[in-house]
């Protein structure tokens, strides 16, 4: 049998696609180790948006003139790219929104308000970003439903064995978790969570904002009912993301935002809603941003999601190994093979802000804070952590510089 091994990606070569690396920070080359907060953008994405603005721009789905047709084709073309990217059955199930936060709020409001009530249970995990936590907590409070959290084990992985116990005999209606944790990098077996949710008659909502940049997300294989993604974490521009939802659920739901474009007919006393996906896309669409996201999908597909995942695992393993050599470092999260390219850690006795500040003086960008995961920080018993996160353009040399930087942190503040 012929085996065609796909070559692992060449991060050093890919860096040339990213103009941001053509600068020095404090006289040092930029080591951008904060891709989990947002990824950098390749020239291909920036060019696609520029060309769209320069040749095809106007509002989409409005005019009958040539430009309007071009703009609409580009926008809908991007929708089709996104559909294929997540293997959705239909492009009408793909709704362009600002980001995963807006997507999760849409589900919490449009589905939650009409489907939750006293006696129902809303289940999230302790690992959630605030975007998949706060809307559900709020909606549970507002509708009188119970809000519960699935606990984590000592590696920061979901305690699937506690699913039944956490819910008890409550009528669980919705289960919402992430596929990849933005804080710890944990990759969760969400297909199992989805299957459990469906057995209990609940819907399963997946926050894939941190997963989509890192690995192939197949909404059908995972068995999700809704999937939320942000464009900015996967080489796309800020200001666009999307929600995928099963058509029958989306059709049964009320709109989230109302106004232009999302209507069928507006009368003095009532309004009827447009078809999917337009029902959920009120107002002027983020057309250029969607085109940029489409170009990002092309870029990632070209590099290969499997190659990206492999590259990130290797970097995570290398970083964990190098950090352990430093001594006095507490790192959080699962082993490298069960996490994306994200490493959260603390330097004993030194606050993450101070760590990140000293590293900045070396041109190294990491995140210091709670990563919008205060429930998780409470669970870990810390106020904040340092987080180094990697992407397809990260090279091992940047991790070596991080380690050198941590020695400097020690010299100054230890």
């Amino acid at each position, binding site marked *: 049998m012929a085996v065609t091994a796909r070559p692992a990606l060449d991060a050093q070569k890919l860096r040339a696609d990213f103009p941001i690396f053509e600068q020095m920070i*404090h006289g040092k080359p930029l080591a951008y180790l904060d891709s989990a907060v947002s990824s950098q953008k390749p020239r291909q994405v920036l060019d696609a948006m520029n060309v769209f603005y320069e040749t095809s721009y106007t509002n989409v789905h409005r005019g009958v003139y040539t430009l309007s047709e071009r703009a609409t084709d580009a926008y809908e073309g991007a929708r089709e790219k996104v559909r294929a990217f997540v293997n959705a059955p239909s492009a009408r199930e793909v709704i362009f929104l600002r980001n995963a936060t807006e997507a999760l709020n849409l589900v919490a409001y449009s589905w939650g308000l009409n489907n939750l009530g006293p006696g129902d249970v809303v289940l999230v995990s302790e690992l959630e970003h605030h975007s998949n936590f706060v809307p559900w907590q709020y909606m549970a409070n507002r509708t009188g439903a119970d809000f519960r959290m699935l606990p984590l084990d000592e590696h920061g992985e979901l305690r699937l064995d506690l699913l039944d116990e956490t819910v008890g005999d409550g009528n669980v209606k919705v289960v919402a978790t992430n596929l990849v944790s933005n804080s710890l990098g944990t990759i969760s077996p969400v297909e199992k969570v989805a299957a459990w949710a469906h057995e209990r008659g609940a819907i399963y909502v997946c926050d894939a904002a941190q997963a989509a940049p890192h690995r192939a997300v197949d909404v059908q294989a995972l068995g999700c009912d809704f999937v939320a993604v942000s464009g900015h974490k996967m080489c796309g521009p800020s200001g666009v993301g999307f929600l995928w939802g099963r058509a029958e659920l989306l059709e049964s739901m009320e709109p989230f935002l109302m106004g232009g474009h999302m209507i069928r007919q507006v009368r003095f006393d009532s309004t009827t809603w447009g078809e999917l996906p337009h029902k959920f896309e009120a107002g002027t669409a983020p057309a250029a941003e969607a085109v940029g996201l489409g170009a990002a999908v092309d870029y990632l597909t070209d590099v290969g999601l499997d190659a990206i995942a492999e590259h990130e695992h290797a970097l995570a393993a290398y970083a964990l190994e190098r950090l352990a050599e430093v001594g006095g470092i507490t790192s959080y999260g699962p082993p490298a093979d069960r996490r994306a390219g994200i490493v959260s850690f603390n330097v004993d006795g030194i*606050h*993450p*802000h*101070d760590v990140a*500040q*000293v590293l*900045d*003086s070396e041109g190294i960008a990491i995140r*210091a*804070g*709670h990563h919008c995961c*205060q429930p998780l*920080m409470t669970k870990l018993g810390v*106020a*904040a952590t340092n987080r180094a996160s990697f992407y397809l353009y990260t090279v091992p040399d940047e991790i070596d510089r991080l380690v050198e930087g941590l020695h400097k942190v020690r010299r*100054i*503040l230890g």
Partner: protein
Amino acid sequence: MVDDLYREVILDHYKNPRGHGVIEGADAHAEGLNPLCGDEVSIYVQFAEDGETIDEVKFSGRGCAISQASTSMLMEMVKGRTATEIAELPKDELLEEIGIPLTPIRLKCALLGLGVLKVALHRAKGTALPEEWAGLDELDLR
């Protein structure tokens, strides 16, 4: 640049904070939180017999070197002054004492202690609380 930020006096206050601790049954007390990083600080004030002069002041909590050092400096600065004086204390006076250039994010670290102290005095003595600190007063720390 980083050497300016972590200059000797800052590191000294960070490693040997003045007035670190708790005053049981304090005359004035408040807690504050920096929502950006989750850092918390509590401040306790004991007044002299005139009920106005700050006789003893202490702080506790967790935070970065900048927030811990600036709060430590603040403790030294305010002792012996009146509640009204401190309520009116311009933040620049503390920033001059800190004496390092701070980015907007780090400014929040440096000024957290001052804000919490103003809230404590406002609650205990009804001193004026400028708009910029009102958010700290509304905070419900559970």
